[in-house]
């Protein structure tokens, strides 16, 4: 008998006609690694919560979940806390205490474990996750990736048998995300922990998991191994979005045989194709018109005693272009954005917006019809109870979006999906009719479809003459919408090029498509471009 058996499970929220989960059945073996995929609103979180009795939401449940042979609802709060670990999306909000060591101790303290056992488990966990150096730190001083690792470690101190993760890497940069997923894989591989994870990052998850469950509108659309999934998909299937780039290119190019899942397998597939070396030569004339934003030899630090966050940073964003500033989390990209937007003052260097020094903008003139900055935490934008009130006075901005927000007008800004929230916030940022729009991590936490939508919005803004500066760690996203990209490192720009050159010249910090194709093709830095080279006249995904 399977470790977890879900039989004919349905769930309906109170005062809702539609079933959020509709007749779902699948089972999970002990020690397996299962990925749960699906678009936002497909019922992933609802399903995961049904597997953790304390977190079940009010509603009608039909069918049953057997956990180790017994109905899961018969577990006591204590048993559930001990046997089922749960890690959610937001790294910050899951913290309860102010110190890392206290956070690590929290689970066992709650379970009333004696001190000796707590000390021993914490020591073990610190060694396993290599977080000894964080032990004494305040939780607020950690980076997002570190926070999420601490959340995971804290849950693991109770030594659970099943680990449930609800989009744990949605708020992390790609490097931190793959480090986190690697930690989860190690737990699975080295301790035989059963893992159930919902995730948007197909690139890292799919090659590593044993089985995939795809949910669509509450139904299971697919249950099986990742290879079975890749084998069975047609090029026009919407589920190709849940595959890694290698498999997507393979399917779109009409490859035959076993579909590749990893970068390495993808490279092998390309090398076995009967292709002469090809390249895409796009005639890009960099639009070096007047600069919209110019930073010259800018130095910035937060404390007199601190170190330079920005050190000799020079950067020019030209009028009418989409510029992506890339780099890892905590490198100082957001600080650069704040300096550019006049929210922080550099101690040395020059900042000019549309040829005028920041000092020359008086009484907030800078933020009226000139520049607008949308921060990472869009929660800090919302003031009102409903989306409708929030967007009052933004009618013109609404017209700019190729997406209708009116159906959301009665909802609370916190109750809509991450992608929709990003669009509402963007609308507010556009209400002052900025000529320069700075977006800080706009693709953070968005699923594939929302990202595509956001790309369209940015491109349509560009066509209307708005200059856009994107601060991001998401290379794939930048590849789709930026004209030029820059790599931020050590407080300055390490490389700055047109997107095509940037992606082709970079070896590590570049898109999966570029890494897969780099030995045979050049300039194929998106799926679409790669497919176009492999299969002339072939369709795009």
């Amino acid at each position, binding site marked *: 008998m399977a470790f977890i058996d879900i039989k004919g499970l349905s769930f309906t929220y109170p005062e809702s006609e539609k079933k959020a989960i509709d007749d779902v059945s699948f089972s999970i073996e002990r020690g397996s690694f299962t990925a749960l995929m699906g678009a936002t609103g497909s019922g992933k979180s609802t399903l995961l919560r049904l597997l953790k009795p*304390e977190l079940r939401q009010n509603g009608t449940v039909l069918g049953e979940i057997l956990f180790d042979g017994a109905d899961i609802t018969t577990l006591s709060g204590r048993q559930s806390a001990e046997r089922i670990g*749960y890690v*959610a999306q937001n790294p910050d*909000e899951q913290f309860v*205490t102010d110190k890392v060591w206290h956070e690590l*101790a929290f689970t066992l303290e*709650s379970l009333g474990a004696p*001190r000796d056992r*707590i000390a021993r488990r914490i020591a073990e966990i610190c060694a396993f996750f290599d977080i000894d150096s964080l032990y004494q730190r305040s939780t607020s001083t950690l980076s997002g990736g570190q926070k999420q690792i601490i959340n995971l470690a804290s849950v693991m101190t109770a030594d659970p048998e099943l680990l449930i993760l609800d989009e744990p890497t949605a708020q992390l940069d790609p490097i931190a995300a793959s480090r986190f997923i690697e930690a989860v894989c190690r737990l699975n591989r080295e301790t035989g922990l059963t893992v159930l994870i919902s995730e948007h990052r197909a690139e890292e998850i799919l090659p590593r998991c044993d089985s995939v469950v795809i949910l669509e509108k509450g139904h299971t659309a697919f249950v099986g191994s990742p290879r079975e999934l890749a084998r069975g998909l047609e090029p026009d299937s919407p589920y190709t979005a849940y595959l890694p780039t290698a498999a997507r290119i393979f399917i779109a190019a009409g490859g035959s045989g076993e579909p590749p899942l990893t970068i390495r397998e993808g490279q092998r597939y390309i090398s076995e194709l009967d292709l002469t070396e090809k390249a895409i030569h796009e005639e890009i004339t960099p639009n070096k018109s007047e600069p919209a934003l110019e930073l010259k030899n800018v130095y910035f630090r937060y404390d007199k005693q601190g170190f330079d966050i920005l050190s000799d940073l020079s950067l020019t964003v030209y009028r009418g272009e989409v510029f992506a500033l890339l780099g890892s989390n905590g490198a100082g990209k957001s600080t650069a954005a704040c300096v550019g937007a006049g929210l922080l003052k550099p101690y040395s260097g020059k900042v000019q917006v549309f040829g005028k020094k920041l000092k020359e903008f008086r009484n907030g003139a800078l933020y009226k019809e000139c520049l607008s900055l949308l921060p990472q935490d869009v929660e800090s934008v919302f003031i009102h109870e409903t989306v409708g009130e929030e967007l009052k006075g933004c009618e013109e901005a609404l017209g700019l979006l190729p997406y209708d927000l009116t159906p959301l007008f009665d909802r609370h800004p916190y109750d809509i999906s991450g992608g929709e929230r990003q669009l509402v916030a963007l609308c507010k940022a556009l209400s002052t009719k900025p000529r320069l729009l700075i977006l800080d991590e706009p693709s953070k936490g968005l699923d594939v479809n929302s990202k595509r939508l956001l790309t369209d919005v940015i491109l349509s803004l560009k066509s209307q003459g708005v200059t856009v500066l994107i601060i991001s760690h998401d290379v794939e996203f930048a590849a789709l919408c930026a004209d030029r990209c820059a790599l931020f490192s050590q407080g300055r720009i390490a490389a700055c090029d047109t997107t095509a050159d940037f992606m082709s010249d970079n070896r590590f910090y570049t898109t999966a498509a570029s890494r897969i194709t780099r030995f045979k093709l050049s300039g194929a830095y998106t799926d679409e471009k790669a497919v176009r080279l492999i299969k002339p006249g072939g369709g795009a995904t």
Partner: protein
Amino acid sequence: MKRFSDLNPIATAVYYMCVLGITMFSMQPLMLCISLVTSILTCVYDRSVKVKGHIFTAVLFLIAAVINPLFVHNGVTVLFYLNDNPFTLEALVYGIVAAGMIAAALYWLRSMSAALSSDKIMYIFGRFSPKIALIISMSLRYIGLFKERFRKIQNTQRALGLYDDGNLIDALRGRARVLSILITWTLENGIVTAESMEARGYMSGRRTSYAPYRIHMADISFIALSLALTAIAIIGLRNTQTVFYPDMRFELFTPWGIAGAAAFALLCLLPIIINIKEAVKWRLLISKA
């Protein structure tokens, strides 16, 4: 023995209770003189008070010393008359002693807050009630979180052109809006914290309280030594006489009085002595290696 800051927090807390207790309840010139001098030495030694802090305390000392004779006209030795009110020597001396007490207590409190970090205070409370410990820890976390979010929201609202601080009314209105967003944000997301607590077994039974501190022999002997010295100091205090009004009568140097003062001086110097001893031991160890 370990460095003073490495002692178990309970030992540290007991120590400061003893020193502060004698400082605040004795009102005896000799003891307060010892307390003031040693408290300054301690704060200078561990650098817990900056130049600004010293200036502040000195000004406070002067004001406190002068205020008493200005308002209290008891005492037989009139120095001069101010607006027809007598300014007496007794009242001045009392004022100086009281000011010394305030200054010494301030220095000791500063030294204590440097020695007892939030972790340590929480550990002490956690011994009595794990719940109180958790509440303190959660509050400390929220203070940091609020500060950071307040700054973020302010920046956002400013960059979106929604925040004017051209005049006072607009600035206040802007602040109010930032606060309102902060509260919504925190309340809406507070549910995640609550769920995270529940998912990790909160309220599933009796809590324990973990802290990375243990009680060693050194802590127990330190507490015993502190209490013994305090006892001698109290006996000493009881065997001296301090009368300010109407005329001053001090009998400070009785045999017990001297013993008590010596014990108190030793008590006050314990942190410095322990740290110097450790430093010397460390030097010797290094030179041998």
